[in-house]
Every structure is written in structure tokens, then in C-alpha cells.
């Protein structure tokens, strides 16, 4: 059964950083956590940063002249620097903190739909096209449906091939001079597919369209440089990259952020307020209404530091090797069909599959009774399930702490599932 994997990470040492991995579950099973695409676990340095922040530096930011306020502001704005470096942003002012990736995606859709931008390139209306793909997470579908409904713009999308790849045959017919914005996922959270963002962005820019990339699954897993990606906006979320819940990021090119009108209104996003009317701060503050998720941003900075300490290239290589191992193991389990690319090329560490005749809910439940945590359902990407004519999938997803033992436990568990319902 055993296949060799070589990984640049010392996984045993990495695992010691994650206290939850010591957890014993019901029946005294050790935790086999294969649900990192849903949310990742948190390493001790991130937890320590949170505690240290709350017990020593807690204050509101930006508006205080006192020492705690200055420390909290330095920590919060320092996290912005860290994230800017992490994704290669040319300027720290291009990094906006949101509550999650969904808010970041909605921010773009809503400001384009609001009609309040001065420059017509940033106003959606009748005659405009919005282009997405069939493999988007609901968070990159519904905001555009609502935007189309509000503005009269038309929503179009790339389909998916049988192999789980974007069907780019109609690239030039789908992205046309009518297209104002193209929003697509970098790595699919259900199929694992890694999309050729640069290719699509090039076509979009040819016709003058904006390109927003949903990096919720890619930013945690591979080195990302926004300049190399060649896109205009990038959304991602903290909790999938070792950070706290309650924090996400929107990066955008300065020119684009300057042209977008404000999103939510309130404290901190203003320049001056009078009852008769208000003016707004420059980005990033223009898009950060109210008290931001301060401790969460600081925690996300610590998470980025933790990942940089491991090295994002190493993180990527580790997940790749585990994925190759898992694809092999699953190929040996009778009745398993991979939904999405079944070879370890241009794909991430997220594998969806079906098990003949057994519903994913039942698969997940029986696995859980052996301590193996996977996700079952449509994974907030229901159109993909519809595309493949299945109600749901079982999904195993990997991260820095995933071992080949975890994969073996999954394969064993699947055999038990089959015996149980056989």
C-alpha cells in the first residue's frame, strides 16, 4: 500500500504547532482532519498573537492618541504591511481588510452595481456583461446575480469540461467589448482545478474589462504575486490560511480602488461628515467602515508570517505531494469516482469524489465515526454538482499538517463505509 512521498516540510514538527491535532474525538479516535478547504486549523503562534494583543495592546485604532491606541494601530497597520508583502502588492494602501472573502467579493460587485462611480467603466448597466464561471463558489455567483438584477447587466459564464477544467473554447465569444468585469476562481474549492487566470485576464484586458480573482483557495496554498497574476482585484479569506475567523482581504490596484465608490458607510471611511453630505477617505480606509476586525487582522498577519516561515513554495510542494499520494490511494478504492482532475497536474489539494451507490452524507457520517473529518455536500458550488448530475460529493482537502497516515485512514474508512452499507 505504502507509496513514497517527498515533502520539503517536516510535517511532524509542523503538527506540533497545531494544538487541536492532539484532540481525541468520540470513541477515543485521534482527529484526522481532512477539511482544510472548509477552514484550516490555527497554529499556536497565531493564538499567542491574539492573546497578546487582547491582554496588552487592545484599543480602537486610528482614532486614539494614547499609547494603547497607538500600539493597536501599529499592529493593525503592520498586518496590512505583512499582507501586502505576502501577496506582492505594490502598495500597502491596496490591501483592504474585510470580514471574509465573501464580503470582499460583494464589495466589488456592489460598488460596480451602485452606479455611484464617476467613471462609467466602473458602473454596471444594461448592455454590459458580467462573466463568471460554472465552477464558482456561491460567494462569487450570488453577488453577481444580485448586481445583474439591480443594474440590468447580463450574467454569462464559462462552462466546465468533463475533466473538470474550464471550457475556454469560447473565450473570445464570452469575453467581448461588452464585458465590464470578469470574476473567476483561481482554484476551485470543489474540483481542486487550478485555472489559468493569466490567460483569461489577458483576454479581459484586451477588451477593457476588470478582472477579479477569488483566491480563497489559492492564496493559502501557493506563492502568489499579484503583479505576476496580472489581475486587477484579488479576494481571499483568513480562516483558510491559518488565520482567525472574521477576517478577509480584498487587494486591488490603486487605480481601480480609487475609481470605485464607497461600499459601507460609517466611522473611519470618511474624510469629513456634515448632515448635508460627506466626503470620503482614500483607499484602503474608504472601504473599511466602522471598527475593523482589529485583532483578527493582527492574527492574520501572524498567520502570514507563520506560512512565510514555512515557505509558501514548501507549503505548495507539500500539498502537491500529499495530493498525488491521495489520488493514487483513491484510485485503488473500488467504486470511487473523482469529480475534477484525476491527475496531480494544475490542481490543488482538494479532492471531491463519489462512492458508488452510497450517498456522501452517509460516507461522511461513517468516516466521522472513525475520526476522519471530511466535508460532504455541494460545497457551496451547487452548479458544479448539477453539471455532473450528482447531488453532492465527499471532499477531502489537505494542508501543511496533512500526513500520508491521514490519507491511509481515509482509504481505510472508505472500505468500512462500503462494508457497512454493502
Amino acid at each position, binding site marked *: 500500500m505504502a507509496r513514497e512521498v517527498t515533502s520539503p516540510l517536516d510535517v511532524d514538527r509542523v503538527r506540533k504547532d497545531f494544538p487541536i491535532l492532539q484532540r481525541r474525538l468520540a470513541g477515543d479516535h485521534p482527529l484526522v482532519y481532512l477539511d482544510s478547504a472548509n477552514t484550516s486549523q490555527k497554529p499556536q503562534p497565531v493564538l499567542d498573537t491574539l492573546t497578546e494583543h487582547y491582554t496588552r495592546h487592545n484599543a480602537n485604532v486610528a482614532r486614539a492618541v494614547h499609547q494603547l491606541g497607538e500600539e493597536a494601530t501599529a499592529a493593525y497597520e503592520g498586518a496590512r504591511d505583512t499582507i501586502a508583502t505576502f501577496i506582492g502588492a505594490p502598495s500597502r494602501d491596496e490591501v483592504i481588510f474585510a470580514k471574509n472573502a465573501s464580503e470582499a467579493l460583494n464589495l466589488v460587485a456592489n460598488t460596480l452595481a451602485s452606479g455611484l462611480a464617476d467613471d462609467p467603466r466602473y458602473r454596471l448597466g444594461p448592455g454590459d456583461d458580467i462573466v463568471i464561471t460554472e465552477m464558482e463558489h456561491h460567494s462569487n455567483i450570488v453577488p453577481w446575480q444580485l448586481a445583474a438584477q439591480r443594474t440590468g447587466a447580463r450574467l454569462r459564464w464559462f462552462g466546465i469540461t468533463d475533466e473538470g477544467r474550464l471550457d475556454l473554447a469560447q473565450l473570445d465569444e464570452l469575453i467581448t467589448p461588452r464585458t465590464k468585469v470578469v470574476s473567476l476562481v483561481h482554484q476551485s474549492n470543489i474540483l481542486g482545478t487550478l485555472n489559468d487566470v493569466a490567460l483569461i485576464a489577458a483576454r479581459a484586458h484586451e477588451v477593457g474589462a476588470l478582472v477579479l480573482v477569488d483566491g480563497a483557495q489559492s492564496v493559502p496554498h501557493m506563492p502568489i504575486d499579484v503583479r505576476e497574476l496580472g489581475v486587477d482585484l484579488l479576494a481571499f479569506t483568513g480562516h483558510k490560511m491559518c488565520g482567525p475567523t472574521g477576517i478577509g482581504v480584498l487587494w486591488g490596484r490603486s487605480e481601480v480602488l480609487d475609481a470605485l465608490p464607497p461600499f459601507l458607510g460609517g466611522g473611519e471611511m470618511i474624510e469629513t461628515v456634515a448632515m448635508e453630505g460627506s466626503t470620503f477617505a482614500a483607499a484602503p480606509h474608504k472601504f473599511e467602515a466602522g471598527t475593523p476586525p482589529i485583532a483578527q487582522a493582527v492574527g492574520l498577519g501572524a498567520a502570514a508570517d507563520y506560512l512565510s516561515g514555512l515557505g509558501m513554495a514548501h507549503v505548495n510542494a507539500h500539498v502537491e505531494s500529499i495530493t498525488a499520494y491521495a489520488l493514487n490511494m483513491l484510485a485503488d478504492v473500488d467504486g470511487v469516482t473523482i469529480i475534477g482532475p484525476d491527475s496531480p497536474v494544475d490542481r490543488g489539494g482538494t479532492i471531491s469524489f463519489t462512492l458508488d451507490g452510497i*450517498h*456522501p*452524507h452517509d460516507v461522511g457520517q*461513517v468516516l466521522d465515526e472513525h475520526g476522519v473529518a471530511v466535508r460532504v455536500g455541494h460545497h457551496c458550488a*451547487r452548479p458544479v*454538482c448539477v453539471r455532473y448530475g450528482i447531488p453532492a460529493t465527499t471532499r477531502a482537502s489537505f494542508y501543511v499538517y496533512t500526513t500520508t497516515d491521514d490519507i491511509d485512514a481515509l482509504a481505510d474508512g472508505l472500505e468500512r463505509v462500503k462494508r*457497512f452499507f454493502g
Partner: protein
Amino acid sequence: MSDSLYQEIILDHYKNPHGRGLREPFDAEAHHVNPTCGDEITVRVATDGATLNDLSYDGQGCSISQASASVLYELLNGRRIEDAFAVEKSFVELMQSKGAIEPDEAVLGDGIAFVGVAKYPARIKCALLSWMAFKDALSRAVATTEGGSPS
């Protein structure tokens, strides 16, 4: 293993479902979907206003949702309307009890096997799917026959 959730009775109903398949004639039909897992069920009822003459169904889903449809059929087919609604009410109560209710086998028959499911919040909807569709269909069928214009 799986003691509390997957009772033998549930597995039996899942592997050998009773009354499955959509039948004619019927007075009302309801199609319900559980959006979180994609489970679907269609339930048809035929009634003269007093008795549930036929209850037929078809769908796809997990063992819990499929077994619970089979139990639904077995318990309610051919029963009087009031009784059917009463049993339905008591099954819903059981599922919402978080396992705190001692189910009454005289009322719920094989339905008592679902007591364990009530402790798994993510699965309660699976168990209730067919029952909710049934309630919907029967309520509409009754309204129609009462309204005097049976289909």
C-alpha cells in the same frame, strides 16, 4: 459502531424501501429539496378527504432520508387523515427533541429508530425531508377536497 445514528431498522428500510415509486391517481404532489446536500423527494397523496388512499414517493438521498420515506409510507398509507397528521406531528416532535423525548412505538412504529438522528443537527433535515413534503401535499389535497373541487 454507528449505534446511535444508523439503527438496524434504518438500514433495513434503506436497503429495502417500502412503497417506493410514484403512482397514479393522486390528488396532490409536493417536491422538496434539501439544499445543503441535494437530497430530493417527490411525495404524492391520493385521498377522498377522509382516508389516505395512497401515498407514493420517489427521490434520491442519503440512507436517513430514504429510510424515513419508507417508514412514512409504512406508517401512514391507508390511515385516516387525522391520524396521519397526528403521527406526522409526533414524528416532527421527536426529531426536534435533541433526543430528549422517549418515542412511543405504538404511535411511531419503526419511526422510533430515528431517535438517534435527533442528536445530529446536520441530519435532522434528512429525516424530515419526506415528512415535510408529505405534510405539504396532504394539506393541499385536503384543502382541495374541502374546497369542493377534487382534481
